[in-house]
């Protein structure tokens, strides 16, 4: 038997791939990886069980994938797909069809929460439970081994039973857990799959040789019978599944049943559940049996069709009380789905006389959105079952102080076997910690007899992300499907973690603690805070330090410390002989990086060789000697909600917050990112005021709003901190008399260096010195933090004083700051600029994707407010519907505006002099003077209303602010705009409504890891275009132009900010729909983003990214609506393409194909340029406009 260490996604994909001919997918976390593996294997020409390379197709949405699946099944193909959560919901209509047509088909779900009040990428069963009525069989796995095995069984049984199978396992917990499993060979799969089943499926295919019709439309006389005609298939399914499971056991020796019972044969208390939680319950039951308890767990493998008879057989007759645990919530239901099935089955058995008694049945919810489910919680459930009057409905793992449903849990309980070694690693996203831990598990899993398990937890930041790796290994099988509570080894890979959270919370007594710190072993102890020292002393820990960053840097690996830390782990953990461990690490480096190139291997090996010479033990004294305590996680003057809730979320203690702490409807305050202060930069830009030319390019380009410019009255800054330097504003005549300062946010900067890159001001005698220069954070952190605080407190000058040109716009207050986007992100500057233009009158409908994650992923959000408490209001609905969401906002808003006007009109005669006209005249969103006047008029109206009586008065008070103009913007990426949301985007444009759509085009699905979209250009390598994309990028702008009534612009801010600022303002002033397509440099392009301004310029100059504006208003002026903002092709396409790894990869792999695709890209650009040049020269006769305005469109003026 071959053992492999791999994660659930790979284990399942490997089976599904080999048993399929057609694979239609769409990326969605946490299932994307399965599709990616399939794509990789197909690119490597790996055959399926029948010697063919499966066709892997990425569709425009999961709805599309399901359609393609349906079609492929009808054509007689063997088909699979992978999805989760919203993806599964989008597939639902086709799933009903596929089941209705009794098509053999097995799909795999990495179960994930369905978005409700918030999106969550984490696990529960709300997605599969929503699909339980489709007619699919639902098969649940609880571990990586089971996921692989049941995947195979699922594919086998569906061919025989014709009932399609939805095989699910827990997202992240199982899909991403690395585990040592017995891998299924091709021969084993061969023995499992029924050839007759394949033949029969093919025989049912649609073919004109034997024509049939399917998908008819049926009337009341026929539909019902047809549905009932499927009954025998569902009745037969359990037996067929049992037979497949028997066959599987015969082939592999691993036995599964529809319901697997583990526990005392005469158990009195039993829990029933499915998924990974059942493994934790299994582990706990084993432990409780040792304590002499009569308990058991019933693992449900087949949820639908629910096999009542098998269930009754599996459940011991002795059971007196039963807890049914659902990992989902159905608000208002009598109980969650599994509870209802179990209750119904028992009830029926009793009513039929098959059972003499009924056990007491209680139902509980656990583990929503990957909330931990631990042995302590299982014990709490068993305890509850013992109670005289247990809670009939309960929750566990949450503290419910609102409806008091939760059970008390003994958080100190630890039942894990001492033979299982447990290690925790705190790493930075980019330092390679997770990668080397995965390698370590492989080393231990495949090189020894030990069992090994790895689970990885990521925060939601895209820059300076924190990762926590949980590694277990030992001689016994590992069922612990929860995070490590007591670790014998804790490694802290970045010193800042010591200051940010309680990294030693889970250190076991006698733990070994390894720190990567830039300190010598002599000074290390004294550098630690009271909190850290206390844990080390109290838990008798052994402390080791290494300056891994220095070792890595000397080996030429910059700050990639993973191999250094990996060596230290093996040296200290003492699982393998040291030399053997080091040899295996080197082998693994060669295996992983060998093809990347010998230098990569050489440097990593050098780091391995020099690691141990720099590892020192630090003696732990018998008492705490420090006086310095860990700094508070949020400033003491932060608002109450931030202190009480956000702080705990930031400290990683959010689970301890009770239900009452949370808003029940998902409504959260904005303006919280300013309290996060992650200090992730090594170096930050420092201003040299003597050189600064006040161009504000730095503030314009900064992805994190970490460098901002401001003008203010000189007196306002008089009492600033000593180092708060200011200079007179000297470059803009409108701002004469004001002072100017450029301010860095030292603890929010990511150190990307873009600001310095674009700074044009140089010291004439030492041109290396610019007006801003990167300098070590630690030298400036305190002073600049103090300066920032004062800078933020400076009152803004009236908005209408600031000119609306690209150099001055950055002086407007940004209402989007300190997001968690990647260092160097090309998207965020557009959003920040939008908030500078319109922030206090802006409603945003955001598509899911990077911009919804850095825009709205708790614990903090970057959207913020101005001094008046106004700012952007933001909502993310789904991936696919942002345009519709925005359109709805616009329509709803228009009605409120209309109602406010109606009420105002009713009071017109009574209003004070001049107020009515002040509230109803033209007031464009960009006319700052008019908006300021309107706000004053509204304030006057409120004052007046305060003295009036009547129901309309109250109503107008609540609607009065709608008399000020508002703007609705839709924001999303290219995956949304070009693919999944294109239909909605198109419809919103067609609607003619005053709605603006901003497409942040990175030319791939960035958030899920670089899958191709229809925005991906020719020649680019992306996932699902591993050989380089062959077809042209869809010209979304041209499609929108074809309406004629849509303002369209394509922009590139980092290189052409002047055109960008014009386009945004023209779009906003256009009374109708506008589409802005924004070039967004992204890490998925594979180059150092500090070069993105130059690279973006190449994109524009080569016509890879033409910039233009299409303004229908110009027709009335006798002009062509299209203006090209960069007409000539100034550099060859190749000059642009050769700078990015996504193109260069293809050149390396297949130079001839690269040349072909470069030529094709060049042609595409030429064709587009020719077409655009002609369009830009077109002359229309101005239209005669009838004198009537649209009722709905009025809100704008």
């Amino acid at each position, binding site marked *: 038997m071959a053992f492999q260490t791999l994660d659930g996604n790979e284990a399942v994909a490997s089976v599904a791939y080999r048993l399929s001919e057609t694979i239609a997918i769409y990326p969605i*976390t946490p299932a994307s990886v399965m599709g990616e593996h399939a794509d990789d294997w197909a690119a490597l020409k790996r055959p399926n069980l029948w010697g063919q390379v499966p066709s892997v197709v990425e569709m425009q949405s999961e709805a599309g994938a399901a359609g393609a699946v349906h079609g492929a099944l009808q054509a007689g193909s063997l088909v699979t797909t992978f999805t989760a959560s919203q993806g599964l919901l989008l597939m639902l209509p086709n799933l009903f069809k596929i089941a209705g047509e009794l098509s053999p088909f097995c799909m795999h779900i990495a179960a994930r929460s369905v978005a409700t009040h918030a999106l969550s*990428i984490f696990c529960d069963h709300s997605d599969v439970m929503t699909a339980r009525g489709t007619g699919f069989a639902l098969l649940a796995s609880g571990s990586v081994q089971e996921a692989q095995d049941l995947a195979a069984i699922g594919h086998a049984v569906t061919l025989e039973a014709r009932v399609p199978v939805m095989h699910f396992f827990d997202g992240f917990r199982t899909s991403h857990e690395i585990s040592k499993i017995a891998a299924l060979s091709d021969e084993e799969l061969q023995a499992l799959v029924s050839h007759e089943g394949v033949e029969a499926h093919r025989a049912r295919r649609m073919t004109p040789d034997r024509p049939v019709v399917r998908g008819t439309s049926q009337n009341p006389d026929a539909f019902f019978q047809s549905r009932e005609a499927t009954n025998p298939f569902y009745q037969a399914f359990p037996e067929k599944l049992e037979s497949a499971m028997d066959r599987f056991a015969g082939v592999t020796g691993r036995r599964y049943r529809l319901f697997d019972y583990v526990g005392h044969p005469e158990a009195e208390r039993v829990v029933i559940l499915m998924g990974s939680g059942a493994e934790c319950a299994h582990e706990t039951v084993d432990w409780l049996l040792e304590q002499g308890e009569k308990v058991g767990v019933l693992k449900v493998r087949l949820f639908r069709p629910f096999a009542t008879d098998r269930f009754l057989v599996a459940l011991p007759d002795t059971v007196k009380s039963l807890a049914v645990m659902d990992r989902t919530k159905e608000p208002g239901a009598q109980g969650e789905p599994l509870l209802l099935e179990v209750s119904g089955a028992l009830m029926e058995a009793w009513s039929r006389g098959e059972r003499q008694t009924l056990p007491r049945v209680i139902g509980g919810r656990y583990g929503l959105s990957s909330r931990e489910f631990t042995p302590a919680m299982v014990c709490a459930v068993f305890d509850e079952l013992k109670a005289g009057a247990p809670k009939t409905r309960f929750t566990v793992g949450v503290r419910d102080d609102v409806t008091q449903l939760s059970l008390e849990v003994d958080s100190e309980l630890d039942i894990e076997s001492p033979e299982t070694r447990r290690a925790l690693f705190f790493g930075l996203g980019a330092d390679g910690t997770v990668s080397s831990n995965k390698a370590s598990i492989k080393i231990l899993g495949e090189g020894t007899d030990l069992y090994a398990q790895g689970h990885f937890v990521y925060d939601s930041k895209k820059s300076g992300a924190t990762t926590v790796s949980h590694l277990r290994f030992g001689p016994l099988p590992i069922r612990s499907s929860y995070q490590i509570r007591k670790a014998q080894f804790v490694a802290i890979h970045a010193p800042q973690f010591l200051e940010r959270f309680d990294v030693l919370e889970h250190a076991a007594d006698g733990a070994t603690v390894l720190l990567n710190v830039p300190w010598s072993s002599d000074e290390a102890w004294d550098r630690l805070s009271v909190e850290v020292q206390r844990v080390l002393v109290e838990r008798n820990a052994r402390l080791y330090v290494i300056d891994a960053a220095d070792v890595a840097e000397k080996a030429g690996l910059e700050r990639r410390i993973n191999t250094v830390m990996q060596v230290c782990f093996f040296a200290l953990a003492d699982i393998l002989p040291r030399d053997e461990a080091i040899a295996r690490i080197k082998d693994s480096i060669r295996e992983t990086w060998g093809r990347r190139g*010998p230098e*990569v291997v050489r440097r990593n090996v050098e780091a391995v060789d020099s690691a141990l010479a720099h590892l020192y033990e630090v003696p732990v004294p018998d008492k705490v000697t420090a006086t310095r305590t860990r700094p508070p996680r949020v400033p003491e003057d932060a608002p109450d909600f931030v202190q009480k809730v956000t702080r705990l979320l930031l400290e990683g203690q959010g689970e301890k917050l009770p239900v009452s702490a949370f808003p029940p409807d998902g409504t959260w305050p904005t303006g919280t990112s300013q309290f996060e202060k992650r200090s992730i930069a090594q170096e930050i830009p420092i201003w040299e005021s003597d050189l600064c030319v006040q161009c504000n390019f730095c503030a314009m380009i900064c992805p994190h709003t970490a460098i901002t410019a401001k003008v203010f009255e000189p007196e306002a800054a008089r009492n600033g901190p000593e180092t708060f330097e200011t200079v007179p504003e000297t470059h803009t005549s409108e701002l004469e008399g004001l002072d100017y300062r450029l301010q860095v946010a030292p603890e929010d900067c990511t150190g990307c260096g873009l600001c310095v890159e674009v700074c044009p001001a140089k010291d*004439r005698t030492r041109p290396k010195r610019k007006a801003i220069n990167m300098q070590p954070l630690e030298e400036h952190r305190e002073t600049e933090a103090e300066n920032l605080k004062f800078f933020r407190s400076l009152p803004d000058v009236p908005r209408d004083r600031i000119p609306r040109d690209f150099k001055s716009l950055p002086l407007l207050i940004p209402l989007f700051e300190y997001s968690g986007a990647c260092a160097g992100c090309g998207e965020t500057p557009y959003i920040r600029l939008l908030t500078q233009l319109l922030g206090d009158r802006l409603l945003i409908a955001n598509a899911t994707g990077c911009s919804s994650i850095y825009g709205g992923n708790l614990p903090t959000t970057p959207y913020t407010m101005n001094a008046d408490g106004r700012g952007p209001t933001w909502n993310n609905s789904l991936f696919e519907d942002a345009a519709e969401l925005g359109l709805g906002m616009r329509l709803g808003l228009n009605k409120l505006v209309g109602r406010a006007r109606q009420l105002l009109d009713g009071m017109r005669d009574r209003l004070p002099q001049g107020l009515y006209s002040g509230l109803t005249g033209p007031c464009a969103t960009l006319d700052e003077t008019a908006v300021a006047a309107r706000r004053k008029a509204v304030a006057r109206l409120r004052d007046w209303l305060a003295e009036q009586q009547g129901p309309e008065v109250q109503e107008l008070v609540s609607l009065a602010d709608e008399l000020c103009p508002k703007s609705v913007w839709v924001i999303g990426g290219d995956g949304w705009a070009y693919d999944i949301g294109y239909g909605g985007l198109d419809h919103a444009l067609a609607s003619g409504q005053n709605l603006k759509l901003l497409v942040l085009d990175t030319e791939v699905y960035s958030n899920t890891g670089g899958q191709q979209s229809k925005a991906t250009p020719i020649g680019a390598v992306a*996932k699902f275009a591993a050989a380089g994309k062959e077809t042209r990028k869809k010209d979304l702008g041209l499609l929108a132009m074809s309406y004629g009534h849509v303002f369209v612009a394509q922009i590139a801010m980092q290189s052409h900010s002047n055109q960008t600022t014009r386009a945004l303002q023209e779009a906003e002033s256009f009374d109708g729909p506008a589409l802005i397509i924004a070039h967004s440099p992204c890490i998925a392009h594979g*180059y*150092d983003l500090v070069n993105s301004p130059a690279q973006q310029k190449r994109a524009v100059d080569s016509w890879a990214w033409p910039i233009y504006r299409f303004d229908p208003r110009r027709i009335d002026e006798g002009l062509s609506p299209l203006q090209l903002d960069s007409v000539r092709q100034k550099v060859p396409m190749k000059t642009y393409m050769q700078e990015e790894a996504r193109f260069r990869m293809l050149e390396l792999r297949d*130079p001839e194909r690269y040349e072909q695709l470069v030529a094709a890209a060049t042609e595409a650009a030429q064709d587009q340029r020719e077409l655009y040049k002609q369009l830009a020269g077109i002359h229309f006769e101005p239209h005669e406009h009838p004198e009537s305005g649209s009722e709905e469109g009025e809100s704008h003026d």
Partner: protein
Amino acid sequence: MTDLTTRWLGLELRSPLVVGAGPLTDDLGALKACVDAGAGAVVMHSLFEEQLVAEQMAAHRFIDSRINMDAEARSFFPGSEMFEMGSRSYLKRLERLRNGLDVPVIASLNGISPGGWTHHARELEDAGAQAIELNLYDLATDPGDTAATLEQRQLDVVRSVVEQVSIPVSVKLSPFYSALPAFVAGVEKAGAKGLVLFNRFYQPDIDLDQLTLSRELVLSSSAELPLRLHAVAMLFNRTKLEMAISGGIHSGDDAAKALLSGATAVQVVSALLAEGPQALARISDAMSRRLRNMGYNTLVEARGALSLANAPDSQTWERLNYARLLHGWR
């Protein structure tokens, strides 16, 4: 008609004119045109040690370090096993040139430190290179490095490359050696078979408007030729190494001079970049015409006729001439 065939590094060339290492050697079509126009061999552009290292490390930094850092994105590119950042693409191009051209293809390696990269020499041989031109491009910026240490390091590089392969290795030098003949003797001892004189330094310019350095490729001119003629004339008969001139060959007369100074082969790069492959035909025709008019039947007769050893006023190549020239100027 002068017989233009010659032997360079043991390879039979139908003409001494060789397409030198440069950007043009990426373009198979242009190279074919050069061969049609009479080129005797092709030197491929250099496989740079620094570039290989830089590219591998950049991929490590910008692709590999973005693996396993995000809950939603396992990575940002398709599986890394499919992409290799080593010499593979160079080797593929080399194979393509070998298959596409019926003249010898010489690969070029550029590096300064004896180390792991010299194994690429073997790969080049395996991929069909018929000789290797080793470009010793070095810039001394560290005051601690003496001429002796640098020269020794370079000779170590030559030795380690020669040891890797069974095909001949030529060494391309810079003009800046205090004692060129002695160094050349070292090169010979290290096992090289030929010399290419000289490489042209990448010379950034100063942009006064932007207060920056500008990096534009400046093409050579015939004015650069005499430096090379001088070196070859001086070394002729003092070394067993065959010599090629690279730099400053823009006309048939330039090429003829190179041969008369003692060169066995003549490399052309800038003229091809400026004019395209037809430059080669122009130079070739003019060179043949000139040699024929001078009455040479074979290249052997012409080679070194005006070297230090054979020239009638050979002291003109030496220092004495310098004084006379200045004297005569008064």
